[in-house]
């Protein structure tokens, strides 16, 4: 019994970390400009595949590959933001949904063409392989590292948003964009910065998480629902909301998979449905739009 609970909590936390890394950027960009960017998962997939190519094919160091993937995806995302997203900022939600669906389709095809249809995972470095014994039970070292990494990112982001000038600007723009612009904050530049950072984090999430969530060309579509759940339950424009939502979803998902596998994600979806019904802005939302 205890064993089941511990394994639910542990695998749930690992999954939650991946979801958090990928979704937090989406939450903040959506909160900033209200863009319904469904294609955010494509950045995570791109990061994962870049790291895969570097580590598994070229033998680059794991952590160097993570860095390269993050920078490369951030650069790609800035180009896409300028060329493709900017014209639809002021268009309706439908245009944004369609545009991001187009990006998802194109990214699936490119990934399929470059890496084939089979699920792939980035090789874990030797230093993180094996099990770690922490007294009464041993855990896979890599997943412990993953969870610790997620915690570090969360603390860093929380600090950056709550305690720095850049964070204050972001919070101001999320709460009231017109007013933020009125006091001289350049929200467009701010948005580009946040978009790039969010995409870089997603890339890291995709690369680090490939051991938990395997890379396939259909990644952006398959996990889209999960990313959107984290964002919509967590509330837009927040750092801690998506963390809590990701943890809830991670625990819920692994509990469902371990305890009642025959039901699939049925109860997750029903729970989301009920939560959004009562709180359309999410459980932990701070942006009251």
């Amino acid at each position, binding site marked *: 019994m205890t064993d089941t609970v511990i394994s639910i909590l542990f695998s749930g936390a690992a999954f939650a970390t991946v979801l958090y890394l990928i979704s937090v950027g989406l939450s903040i960009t959506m909160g900033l400009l209200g863009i*319904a960017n469904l294609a955010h998962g494509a950045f995570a997939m791109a990061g994962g595949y870049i790291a895969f190519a570097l580590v598994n094919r070229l033998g680059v160091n794991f952590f160097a590959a993570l860095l390269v993937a993050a920078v490369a995806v951030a650069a790609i995302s800035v180009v896409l933001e300028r060329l493709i997203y900017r014209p639809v900022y002021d268009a309706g939600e439908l245009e944004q949904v369609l545009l991001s669906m187009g990006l998802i*389709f194109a990214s699936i095809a490119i990934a399929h063409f470059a890496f084939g249809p089979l699920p792939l995972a980035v090789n874990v470095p030797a230093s993180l392989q094996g099990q770690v014994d922490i007294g009464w039970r041993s855990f896979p070292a890599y997943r412990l590292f993953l969870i610790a990494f997620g915690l570090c990112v969360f603390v860093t982001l929380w600090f950056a948003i709550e305690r720095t000038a850049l964070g204050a600007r972001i919070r101001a723009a999320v709460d009231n964009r017109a007013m933020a612009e009125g006091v001289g904050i350049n929200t467009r530049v701010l948005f580009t910065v946040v978009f790039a950072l969010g995409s870089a984090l997603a890339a890291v999430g995709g690369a680090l998480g490939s051991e938990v969530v395997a890379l396939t060309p259909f990644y952006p579509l398959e996990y889209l629902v999960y990313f959107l759940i984290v964002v919509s339950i967590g509330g837009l424009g927040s750092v801690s909301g998506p963390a809590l939502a990701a943890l809830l979803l991670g625990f819920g998902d692994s509990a469902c998979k371990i305890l009642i596998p025959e039901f699939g994600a*049925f109860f997750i979806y*029903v729970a989301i449905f009920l939560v959004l019904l009562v709180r359309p802005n999410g459980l932990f939302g701070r942006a009251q*739009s």
Partner: protein
Amino acid sequence: MSLQDARNAAVEKLLSRRRLSPLELLPWVIALGVYFFLPQYLTLGSQILIMVLFALSLDITLGYAGVIILGHAAFYGMGAYTAGLLAVHGWGDPLIGLVAAAIAAAILGLVSGIVILRTTGLALLMLGMAVALILYEAANRLHDITGGFDGLRGMTIQPIFGYFDFDFFGKTAFLYCLAVLFLAWLFVRQVVISPFGRSLVGIQENADRMAAIGTPVARRKLIAFVLSAAIAGIAGALSAQINQFVSLSVFSFELSGTVLVMLVLGGAGRLYGAFVGAPLYMIAQDQFAKGDPVYWLFWLGILLIAVVLFARGGILGVVDAVRETIGRRLTGRVAVAAADTKSSAGS
């Protein structure tokens, strides 16, 4: 132009929508042409007609009421499973199947609509998806009833009116789909040109103002949603009866996305977007996706991006814009000519 003239012009514009223009008969002429001259394409043709009907149903909510729903497949699937289960258990009359499917999908639309139409933005997108996802998981779980992942098989579909049997070449199936689509088109056309349909457009453009002039916004949206769900259910039922098979993919996100893409490629909110978009999509997919479906996905993605960036109204939007430009040039010339005559007469 005086106020009276402006009012007359507006009334004239509204009335002109009621008149049937010859162009509106084009889809039916083409469909009959396919039936008589291209019999080898009847199977594909029936699938196209079903998707046209499905996209037409989405047009009511998306194009007219302006509700962005990413889970329209829920209603299609509901109709498909309703008609399919009826046929498996001995009620194989196709028309009863259609009616039952429409009712089942309408009830689902009513229940889910009451709930999800209260929200907007991201929550609305999510809830729309959630409805289809929940049904997908439920249908997968209830494999004793639905066949689960293997799909629903073993239907016996009786002849239509007890007389027209479904033949091997798909002739009856094609005409059956065509007749159902025709009736649905007449109905939807009547709905969107009615004051009710106009009020939906008003709600899409400015819901607050419509509420201020006394339109029951929430109720109108819900009615549109239920109508749309019922028609989607009929489309699903047609698909189940003609293919004599229902798979879980009727609830899939891919299907919801596909029908959205078809409608938007053709042009949403124009009644004929479905008639343009769905055939083009299906024919292109049939041609290009045979060899390499992923290649097709790539170009579909690029096409979607291009439509959003350069052609918001879809194909019909582009056609309208071109016609308007030509029309303006012509009337401009006439006006200039008239002004010339006037000034020369005056001098």
